[in-house]
Protein backbone atom coordinates (compact mmCIF):
# COMPACT_ATOMS: atom_id res chain seq x y z
CA UNK A 1 0.00 0.00 0.00
CA UNK A 2 1.28 3.52 -0.70
CA UNK A 3 2.53 5.56 2.23
CA UNK A 4 3.20 9.29 2.35
CA UNK A 5 5.97 10.64 4.52
CA UNK A 6 7.63 14.05 4.24
CA UNK A 7 6.02 14.70 0.88
CA UNK A 8 7.49 11.46 -0.58
CA UNK A 9 5.58 8.37 -1.71
CA UNK A 10 6.44 4.78 -0.89
CA UNK A 11 4.96 1.33 -1.04
CA UNK A 12 5.11 -1.38 1.58
CA UNK A 13 6.54 -4.71 0.50
CA UNK A 14 3.85 -7.41 0.56
CA UNK A 15 6.46 -9.93 1.64
CA UNK A 16 8.47 -8.27 4.45
CA UNK A 17 6.76 -4.93 4.99
CA UNK A 18 9.81 -2.81 4.20
CA UNK A 19 9.34 0.66 2.67
CA UNK A 20 10.24 0.94 -1.01
CA UNK A 21 9.76 3.61 -3.66
CA UNK A 22 6.29 2.99 -5.00
CA UNK A 23 7.64 2.33 -8.52
CA UNK A 24 10.20 -0.32 -7.40
CA UNK A 25 9.81 -3.67 -9.15
CA UNK A 26 11.61 -5.59 -6.39
CA UNK A 27 11.85 -4.99 -2.67
CA UNK A 28 15.14 -3.33 -1.64
CA UNK A 29 15.14 -5.29 1.56
CA UNK A 30 14.03 -8.84 0.64
CA UNK A 31 14.15 -8.78 -3.19
CA UNK A 32 10.56 -10.00 -3.54
CA UNK A 33 8.81 -8.95 -6.73
CA UNK A 34 6.25 -6.15 -6.25
CA UNK A 35 3.12 -6.80 -8.24
CA UNK A 36 1.16 -3.67 -7.39
CA UNK A 37 1.16 -0.84 -9.92
CA UNK A 38 0.15 2.29 -8.07
CA UNK A 39 0.04 5.81 -9.38
CA UNK A 40 2.40 8.14 -7.56
CA UNK A 41 0.78 9.94 -4.65
CA UNK A 42 3.38 12.68 -4.45
CA UNK A 43 4.55 14.87 -7.31
CA UNK A 44 8.19 14.79 -6.19
CA UNK A 45 8.76 11.17 -7.18
CA UNK A 46 8.74 10.41 -10.88
CA UNK A 47 6.48 7.57 -11.89
CA UNK A 48 8.56 4.89 -13.54
CA UNK A 49 8.68 1.14 -13.64
CA UNK A 50 12.42 1.15 -14.37
CA UNK A 51 14.79 -0.43 -11.87
CA UNK A 52 16.10 2.24 -9.59
CA UNK A 53 19.91 2.06 -9.64
CA UNK A 54 20.77 0.70 -13.07
CA UNK A 55 19.84 3.91 -14.92
CA UNK A 56 22.11 6.08 -12.80
CA UNK A 57 24.86 3.44 -12.82
CA UNK A 58 24.70 3.22 -16.62
CA UNK A 59 24.93 7.00 -16.95
CA UNK A 60 27.89 7.05 -14.57
CA UNK A 61 29.64 4.24 -16.49
CA UNK A 62 29.13 6.02 -19.83
CA UNK A 63 30.31 9.28 -18.32
CA UNK A 64 33.49 7.63 -17.00
CA UNK A 65 34.04 5.89 -20.32
CA UNK A 66 33.74 9.15 -22.29
CA UNK A 67 35.99 10.91 -19.80
CA UNK A 68 38.59 8.17 -20.27
CA UNK A 69 38.34 8.49 -24.07
CA UNK A 70 38.85 12.26 -23.74
CA UNK A 71 41.87 11.77 -21.46
CA UNK A 72 43.30 9.12 -23.81
CA UNK A 73 42.89 11.47 -26.78
CA UNK A 74 44.33 14.43 -24.87
CA UNK A 75 47.40 12.38 -23.86
CA UNK A 76 47.95 11.37 -27.47
CA UNK A 77 47.55 15.01 -28.48
CA UNK A 78 50.07 16.14 -25.85
CA UNK A 79 52.70 13.54 -26.79
CA UNK A 80 52.42 14.23 -30.52
CA UNK A 81 52.14 17.69 -32.06
CA UNK A 82 50.21 19.48 -29.33
CA UNK A 83 48.70 22.01 -31.76
CA UNK A 84 45.69 23.86 -30.29
CA UNK A 85 43.43 22.93 -33.25
CA UNK A 86 43.74 19.22 -32.48
CA UNK A 87 42.64 19.70 -28.88
CA UNK A 88 39.08 20.31 -30.08
CA UNK A 89 38.12 16.62 -30.24
CA UNK A 90 39.23 15.54 -26.74
CA UNK A 91 37.70 18.72 -25.33
CA UNK A 92 34.38 17.95 -27.01
CA UNK A 93 34.38 14.34 -25.73
CA UNK A 94 35.26 15.61 -22.26
CA UNK A 95 32.32 18.01 -22.38
CA UNK A 96 30.01 15.14 -23.36
CA UNK A 97 31.32 13.18 -20.36
CA UNK A 98 30.62 16.10 -18.03
CA UNK A 99 27.12 16.38 -19.56
CA UNK A 100 26.42 12.72 -18.86
CA UNK A 101 27.73 13.08 -15.33
CA UNK A 102 25.38 16.03 -14.75
CA UNK A 103 22.51 13.92 -16.17
CA UNK A 104 23.40 11.13 -13.73
CA UNK A 105 23.32 13.62 -10.82
CA UNK A 106 19.94 14.91 -11.96
CA UNK A 107 18.61 11.36 -12.23
CA UNK A 108 19.82 10.75 -8.72
CA UNK A 109 18.25 13.93 -7.42
CA UNK A 110 14.87 13.38 -9.09
CA UNK A 111 14.45 9.62 -8.89
CA UNK A 112 16.51 8.18 -6.06
CA UNK A 113 17.25 10.89 -3.54
CA UNK A 114 13.56 11.58 -2.71
CA UNK A 115 13.11 7.90 -1.92
CA UNK A 116 15.91 7.83 0.64
CA UNK A 117 14.35 7.36 3.98
CA UNK A 118 16.42 4.71 5.61
CA UNK A 119 20.12 4.26 6.28
CA UNK A 120 20.46 1.50 3.65
CA UNK A 121 19.71 3.89 0.82
CA UNK A 122 22.11 6.47 2.17
CA UNK A 123 24.77 3.80 2.49
CA UNK A 124 24.08 2.82 -1.10
CA UNK A 125 24.72 6.39 -2.21
CA UNK A 126 28.09 6.31 -0.46
CA UNK A 127 28.85 2.93 -2.06
CA UNK A 128 28.03 4.28 -5.53
CA UNK A 129 30.35 7.25 -4.96
CA UNK A 130 33.14 4.95 -3.69
CA UNK A 131 32.86 2.55 -6.64
CA UNK A 132 32.66 5.44 -9.13
CA UNK A 133 35.75 7.14 -7.72
CA UNK A 134 37.73 3.87 -7.53
CA UNK A 135 36.80 2.59 -11.00
CA UNK A 136 37.14 6.10 -12.45
CA UNK A 137 40.63 6.59 -11.01
CA UNK A 138 41.85 3.23 -12.33
CA UNK A 139 40.27 3.84 -15.72
CA UNK A 140 41.74 7.33 -16.07
CA UNK A 141 45.20 6.04 -15.07
CA UNK A 142 44.87 3.35 -17.76
CA UNK A 143 43.74 5.98 -20.29
CA UNK A 144 46.75 8.19 -19.47
CA UNK A 145 49.13 5.21 -19.78
CA UNK A 146 47.69 3.99 -23.09
CA UNK A 147 47.38 7.53 -24.51
CA UNK A 148 50.96 8.35 -23.62
CA UNK A 149 52.37 5.05 -24.95
CA UNK A 150 50.42 5.15 -28.22
CA UNK A 151 51.08 8.89 -28.72
CA UNK A 152 54.80 8.40 -28.15
CA UNK A 153 54.91 5.44 -30.51
CA UNK A 154 52.94 7.32 -33.19
CA UNK A 155 55.29 10.31 -32.98
CA UNK A 156 58.34 8.06 -33.19
CA UNK A 157 57.00 6.23 -36.24
CA UNK A 158 55.98 9.46 -37.98
CA UNK A 159 59.48 10.92 -37.53
CA UNK A 160 61.00 7.66 -38.77
CA UNK A 161 58.70 7.61 -41.82
CA UNK A 162 59.51 11.25 -42.63
CA UNK A 163 63.27 10.66 -42.31
CA UNK A 164 63.10 7.51 -44.46
CA UNK A 165 61.22 9.45 -47.13
CA UNK A 166 63.79 12.27 -46.96
CA UNK A 167 66.65 9.74 -47.09
CA UNK A 168 65.18 8.13 -50.18
CA UNK A 169 64.49 11.46 -51.95
CA UNK A 170 67.98 12.89 -51.31
CA UNK A 171 69.60 9.58 -52.31
CA UNK A 172 67.69 9.62 -55.61
CA UNK A 173 68.68 13.25 -56.22
CA UNK A 174 72.37 12.49 -55.65
CA UNK A 175 72.25 9.42 -57.92
CA UNK A 176 70.52 11.42 -60.65
CA UNK A 177 73.11 14.22 -60.41
CA UNK A 178 75.97 11.75 -60.64
CA UNK A 179 74.44 9.81 -63.55
CA UNK A 180 73.86 12.97 -65.55
CA UNK A 181 77.44 14.21 -65.24
CA UNK A 182 79.38 14.70 -68.48
CA UNK A 183 82.66 13.03 -69.38
CA UNK A 184 85.15 15.81 -68.73
CA UNK A 185 86.88 16.70 -65.49
CA UNK A 186 85.15 20.10 -65.58
CA UNK A 187 81.76 18.35 -65.84
CA UNK A 188 82.58 16.20 -62.85
CA UNK A 189 83.76 19.18 -60.83
CA UNK A 190 80.44 20.94 -61.54
CA UNK A 191 78.54 17.79 -60.63
CA UNK A 192 80.40 17.47 -57.31
CA UNK A 193 79.71 21.13 -56.54
CA UNK A 194 76.02 20.68 -57.25
CA UNK A 195 75.57 17.56 -55.08
CA UNK A 196 77.59 18.79 -52.09
CA UNK A 197 74.59 20.23 -50.13
CA UNK A 198 72.66 16.99 -50.72
CA UNK A 199 75.57 14.85 -49.57
CA UNK A 200 75.80 16.89 -46.36
CA UNK A 201 72.01 16.57 -45.86
CA UNK A 202 72.11 12.81 -46.47
CA UNK A 203 74.93 12.39 -43.96
CA UNK A 204 72.87 14.20 -41.36
CA UNK A 205 69.69 12.26 -42.24
CA UNK A 206 71.55 8.92 -42.07
CA UNK A 207 72.90 9.73 -38.62
CA UNK A 208 69.40 10.53 -37.37
CA UNK A 209 67.99 7.39 -38.98
CA UNK A 210 70.61 5.15 -37.36
CA UNK A 211 69.56 6.47 -33.93
CA UNK A 212 65.86 6.15 -34.73
CA UNK A 213 66.24 2.62 -36.10
CA UNK A 214 68.19 1.64 -32.98
CA UNK A 215 65.22 2.76 -30.86
CA UNK A 216 62.82 1.01 -33.26
CA UNK A 217 64.81 -2.21 -32.92
CA UNK A 218 64.44 -2.08 -29.14
CA UNK A 219 60.70 -1.40 -29.28
CA UNK A 220 59.90 -3.82 -32.11
CA UNK A 221 62.13 -6.85 -31.56
CA UNK A 222 59.85 -8.91 -33.80
CA UNK A 223 61.18 -6.94 -36.80
CA UNK A 224 64.84 -7.30 -35.76
CA UNK A 225 66.04 -8.99 -38.96
CA UNK A 226 64.46 -6.35 -41.20
CA UNK A 227 65.70 -3.49 -38.99
CA UNK A 228 69.24 -4.90 -38.93
CA UNK A 229 69.22 -4.99 -42.74
CA UNK A 230 68.05 -1.36 -42.90
CA UNK A 231 70.71 -0.28 -40.38
CA UNK A 232 73.40 -2.04 -42.46
CA UNK A 233 72.22 -0.29 -45.65
CA UNK A 234 72.17 3.13 -43.99
CA UNK A 235 75.59 2.53 -42.45
CA UNK A 236 76.88 1.72 -45.94
CA UNK A 237 75.32 4.94 -47.25
CA UNK A 238 77.06 6.86 -44.48
CA UNK A 239 80.42 5.41 -45.52
CA UNK A 240 79.60 6.22 -49.15
CA UNK A 241 78.78 9.83 -48.21
CA UNK A 242 82.09 10.05 -46.33
CA UNK A 243 83.94 8.97 -49.47
CA UNK A 244 81.84 11.36 -51.57
CA UNK A 245 82.78 14.25 -49.31
CA UNK A 246 86.45 13.35 -49.84
CA UNK A 247 85.83 13.27 -53.61
CA UNK A 248 84.17 16.67 -53.40
CA UNK A 249 87.25 17.95 -51.53
CA UNK A 250 89.53 16.61 -54.30
CA UNK A 251 87.26 18.14 -56.96
CA UNK A 252 87.48 21.57 -55.26
CA UNK A 253 91.26 21.25 -55.19
CA UNK A 254 91.41 20.11 -58.84
CA UNK A 255 89.27 23.06 -59.88
CA UNK A 256 92.01 25.51 -58.81
CA UNK A 257 94.77 23.59 -60.69
CA UNK A 258 96.13 24.21 -64.14
CA UNK A 259 94.58 21.91 -66.80
CA UNK A 260 97.75 19.86 -67.21
CA UNK A 261 97.93 19.14 -63.45
CA UNK A 262 94.26 18.31 -63.18
CA UNK A 263 94.43 14.91 -64.87
CA UNK A 264 97.27 13.66 -62.67
CA UNK A 265 95.55 14.81 -59.51
CA UNK A 266 92.27 13.32 -60.71
CA UNK A 267 93.82 9.93 -61.43
CA UNK A 268 96.01 9.93 -58.34
CA UNK A 269 93.50 11.16 -55.76
CA UNK A 270 89.91 10.95 -56.98
CA UNK A 271 89.90 7.68 -58.90
CA UNK A 272 91.12 5.62 -55.88
CA UNK A 273 88.33 7.14 -53.80
CA UNK A 274 85.79 6.24 -56.50
CA UNK A 275 87.16 2.69 -56.62
CA UNK A 276 86.88 2.44 -52.85
CA UNK A 277 83.28 3.58 -53.15
CA UNK A 278 82.58 0.91 -55.77
CA UNK A 279 83.91 -1.74 -53.40
CA UNK A 280 81.13 -0.87 -50.94
CA UNK A 281 78.63 -2.45 -53.33
CA UNK A 282 80.65 -5.67 -53.45
CA UNK A 283 80.73 -6.09 -49.66
CA UNK A 284 77.83 -8.03 -48.29
CA UNK A 285 76.73 -6.50 -44.99
CA UNK A 286 77.02 -8.77 -41.99
Amino acid at each position, binding site marked *: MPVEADNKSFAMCQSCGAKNPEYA*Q*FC*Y*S*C*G*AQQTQTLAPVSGTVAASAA*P*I*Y*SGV*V*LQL*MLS*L*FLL*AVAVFDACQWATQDGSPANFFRPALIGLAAVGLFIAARRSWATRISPAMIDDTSKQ*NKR*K*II*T*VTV*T*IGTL*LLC*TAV*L*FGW*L*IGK*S*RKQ*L*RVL*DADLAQYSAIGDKISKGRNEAGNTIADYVRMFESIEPDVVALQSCSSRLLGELGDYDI*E*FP*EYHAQTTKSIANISKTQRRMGLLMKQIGVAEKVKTMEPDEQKAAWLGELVPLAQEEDKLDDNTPH
Partner: protein
Amino acid sequence: MHILCALSVFATDQHTTTPTLPLGWLIMWWLCARRKNEPIGGWLAYYYYQLYVGAIFGILMVAGLNIHSYVPENFSGQSKVFYLFLLSALPGLLLLFFEVAAASYLLALKTWDLVVLLRRVLIASALAEAVGLVIDAKYFPDNVALGMLSFVPHLLWIGYFYRSERVQRVFKTHDWQPAPKAALA
Protein backbone atom coordinates in the same frame (compact mmCIF):
# COMPACT_ATOMS: atom_id res chain seq x y z
CA MET B 1 38.82 -15.35 -19.45
CA HIS B 2 40.11 -11.78 -19.59
CA ILE B 3 43.68 -12.95 -19.38
CA LEU B 4 42.97 -14.98 -22.49
CA CYS B 5 41.31 -11.96 -24.07
CA ALA B 6 44.47 -9.93 -23.55
CA LEU B 7 46.64 -12.76 -24.81
CA SER B 8 44.45 -13.06 -27.87
CA VAL B 9 45.20 -9.44 -28.68
CA PHE B 10 48.85 -10.01 -27.89
CA ALA B 11 49.03 -12.93 -30.29
CA THR B 12 47.86 -10.90 -33.25
CA ASP B 13 51.27 -9.84 -34.43
CA GLN B 14 53.58 -11.91 -32.30
CA HIS B 15 54.12 -15.60 -32.65
CA THR B 16 55.13 -16.46 -29.13
CA THR B 17 53.87 -19.18 -26.86
CA THR B 18 51.38 -17.87 -24.35
CA PRO B 19 52.00 -18.68 -20.72
CA THR B 20 49.33 -20.53 -18.85
CA LEU B 21 48.62 -19.75 -15.22
CA PRO B 22 47.62 -23.05 -13.58
CA LEU B 23 49.03 -21.95 -10.21
CA GLY B 24 47.00 -18.73 -10.27
CA TRP B 25 43.85 -20.62 -11.16
CA LEU B 26 44.48 -23.12 -8.37
CA ILE B 27 44.97 -20.33 -5.82
CA MET B 28 41.76 -18.62 -6.99
CA TRP B 29 39.86 -21.91 -6.85
CA TRP B 30 41.15 -22.57 -3.32
CA LEU B 31 40.17 -19.06 -2.18
CA CYS B 32 36.68 -19.47 -3.66
CA ALA B 33 36.22 -22.93 -2.17
CA ARG B 34 37.13 -21.51 1.26
CA ARG B 35 34.42 -18.87 0.89
CA LYS B 36 31.71 -21.14 -0.45
CA ASN B 37 29.44 -20.52 2.56
CA GLU B 38 29.76 -16.73 2.21
CA PRO B 39 27.31 -14.85 -0.01
CA ILE B 40 30.13 -13.84 -2.35
CA GLY B 41 31.77 -17.24 -2.46
CA GLY B 42 32.08 -20.30 -4.65
CA TRP B 43 31.73 -19.65 -8.37
CA LEU B 44 30.47 -16.11 -7.74
CA ALA B 45 33.73 -15.25 -5.93
CA TYR B 46 35.64 -16.99 -8.71
CA TYR B 47 33.88 -14.75 -11.23
CA TYR B 48 35.02 -11.63 -9.36
CA TYR B 49 38.59 -12.89 -8.84
CA GLN B 50 39.07 -13.81 -12.49
CA LEU B 51 37.45 -10.53 -13.59
CA TYR B 52 39.71 -8.27 -11.52
CA VAL B 53 42.90 -10.29 -11.93
CA GLY B 54 42.19 -10.67 -15.65
CA ALA B 55 41.51 -6.94 -16.08
CA ILE B 56 44.77 -5.93 -14.36
CA PHE B 57 46.76 -8.60 -16.18
CA GLY B 58 45.13 -7.66 -19.50
CA ILE B 59 45.96 -3.95 -19.10
CA LEU B 60 49.57 -4.74 -18.22
CA MET B 61 49.88 -7.18 -21.13
CA VAL B 62 48.51 -4.68 -23.65
CA ALA B 63 50.56 -1.79 -22.25
CA GLY B 64 53.76 -3.77 -21.95
CA LEU B 65 53.75 -6.09 -24.91
CA ASN B 66 51.11 -5.25 -27.46
CA ILE B 67 50.60 -1.49 -27.50
CA HIS B 68 52.18 -1.25 -30.99
CA SER B 69 49.27 -3.19 -32.48
CA TYR B 70 47.08 -0.18 -31.64
CA VAL B 71 49.32 2.33 -33.45
CA PRO B 72 47.90 3.11 -36.91
CA GLU B 73 51.30 4.18 -38.29
CA ASN B 74 52.45 0.60 -37.72
CA PHE B 75 50.02 -0.54 -40.41
CA SER B 76 51.08 1.97 -43.09
CA GLY B 77 49.68 0.77 -46.42
CA GLN B 78 47.53 -1.82 -44.62
CA SER B 79 44.87 0.38 -43.06
CA LYS B 80 42.18 -2.24 -43.78
CA VAL B 81 44.07 -4.79 -41.65
CA PHE B 82 44.40 -2.20 -38.87
CA TYR B 83 40.68 -1.44 -38.82
CA LEU B 84 39.83 -5.16 -38.90
CA PHE B 85 42.21 -5.71 -36.01
CA LEU B 86 40.56 -2.88 -34.07
CA LEU B 87 37.11 -4.30 -34.84
CA SER B 88 38.27 -7.70 -33.65
CA ALA B 89 40.08 -6.68 -30.46
CA LEU B 90 38.92 -3.25 -29.30
CA PRO B 91 35.20 -3.82 -28.48
CA GLY B 92 36.11 -6.68 -26.14
CA LEU B 93 38.65 -4.51 -24.32
CA LEU B 94 36.23 -1.58 -24.02
CA LEU B 95 33.42 -3.81 -22.81
CA LEU B 96 35.81 -5.19 -20.20
CA PHE B 97 35.60 -1.77 -18.51
CA PHE B 98 31.78 -1.89 -18.54
CA GLU B 99 31.85 -5.42 -17.14
CA VAL B 100 34.26 -4.49 -14.35
CA ALA B 101 32.21 -1.39 -13.53
CA ALA B 102 28.81 -3.15 -13.62
CA ALA B 103 30.15 -6.06 -11.54
CA SER B 104 31.67 -3.64 -9.01
CA TYR B 105 28.45 -1.65 -8.63
CA LEU B 106 26.60 -4.96 -8.23
CA LEU B 107 29.05 -6.13 -5.58
CA ALA B 108 28.59 -2.87 -3.67
CA LEU B 109 24.80 -2.47 -3.98
CA LYS B 110 23.60 -6.08 -4.41
CA THR B 111 20.38 -5.10 -6.21
CA TRP B 112 18.66 -7.22 -8.82
CA ASP B 113 18.46 -4.51 -11.50
CA LEU B 114 22.27 -4.45 -11.57
CA VAL B 115 22.33 -8.23 -12.16
CA VAL B 116 20.15 -7.55 -15.21
CA LEU B 117 22.59 -4.81 -16.28
CA LEU B 118 25.59 -7.12 -15.83
CA ARG B 119 23.88 -9.85 -17.86
CA ARG B 120 23.38 -7.38 -20.71
CA VAL B 121 27.02 -6.31 -20.57
CA LEU B 122 28.09 -9.98 -20.61
CA ILE B 123 25.88 -10.65 -23.63
CA ALA B 124 27.31 -7.59 -25.41
CA SER B 125 30.83 -8.85 -24.62
CA ALA B 126 30.01 -12.31 -25.97
CA LEU B 127 28.59 -10.77 -29.16
CA ALA B 128 31.71 -8.61 -29.56
CA GLU B 129 33.87 -11.69 -29.12
CA ALA B 130 31.78 -13.61 -31.66
CA VAL B 131 32.33 -10.83 -34.20
CA GLY B 132 36.03 -10.85 -33.28
CA LEU B 133 36.14 -14.61 -33.82
CA VAL B 134 34.63 -14.30 -37.30
CA ILE B 135 37.20 -11.64 -38.21
CA ASP B 136 40.02 -13.67 -36.69
CA ALA B 137 38.94 -16.78 -38.59
CA LYS B 138 39.32 -14.91 -41.86
CA TYR B 139 42.21 -12.51 -41.25
CA PHE B 140 44.09 -13.60 -38.10
CA PRO B 141 43.67 -17.40 -37.98
CA ASP B 142 46.37 -17.77 -35.32
CA ASN B 143 44.04 -16.07 -32.84
CA VAL B 144 41.00 -18.31 -33.29
CA ALA B 145 41.96 -20.88 -30.65
CA LEU B 146 42.62 -18.21 -28.02
CA GLY B 147 39.48 -16.37 -29.07
CA MET B 148 37.43 -19.52 -28.49
CA LEU B 149 39.03 -19.97 -25.06
CA SER B 150 37.81 -16.49 -24.20
CA PHE B 151 34.39 -16.74 -25.87
CA VAL B 152 33.26 -20.05 -24.33
CA PRO B 153 33.82 -19.02 -20.68
CA HIS B 154 31.89 -15.82 -21.44
CA LEU B 155 28.92 -17.95 -22.50
CA LEU B 156 29.29 -20.01 -19.33
CA TRP B 157 29.21 -16.88 -17.15
CA ILE B 158 26.08 -15.66 -18.95
CA GLY B 159 24.47 -19.02 -18.17
CA TYR B 160 25.70 -18.76 -14.57
CA PHE B 161 24.14 -15.33 -14.03
CA TYR B 162 20.84 -16.59 -15.46
CA ARG B 163 20.67 -19.94 -13.67
CA SER B 164 22.66 -19.69 -10.43
CA GLU B 165 20.70 -20.12 -7.21
CA ARG B 166 23.43 -18.22 -5.36
CA VAL B 167 22.98 -15.21 -7.67
CA GLN B 168 19.21 -15.28 -7.07
CA ARG B 169 19.56 -15.56 -3.31
CA VAL B 170 22.38 -13.04 -2.88
CA PHE B 171 21.10 -10.34 -5.20
CA LYS B 172 17.33 -10.90 -5.45
CA THR B 173 15.87 -12.54 -2.36
CA HIS B 174 18.80 -11.56 -0.09
CA ASP B 175 18.34 -14.75 1.94
CA TRP B 176 21.67 -16.52 1.45
CA GLN B 177 22.38 -18.64 4.49
CA PRO B 178 25.59 -20.58 5.08
CA ALA B 179 25.06 -24.33 5.22
CA PRO B 180 24.97 -25.68 8.80
CA LYS B 181 28.18 -27.33 9.90
CA ALA B 182 26.35 -30.55 10.70
CA ALA B 183 25.06 -30.71 7.14
CA LEU B 184 28.58 -30.18 5.82
CA ALA B 185 29.84 -33.02 8.03
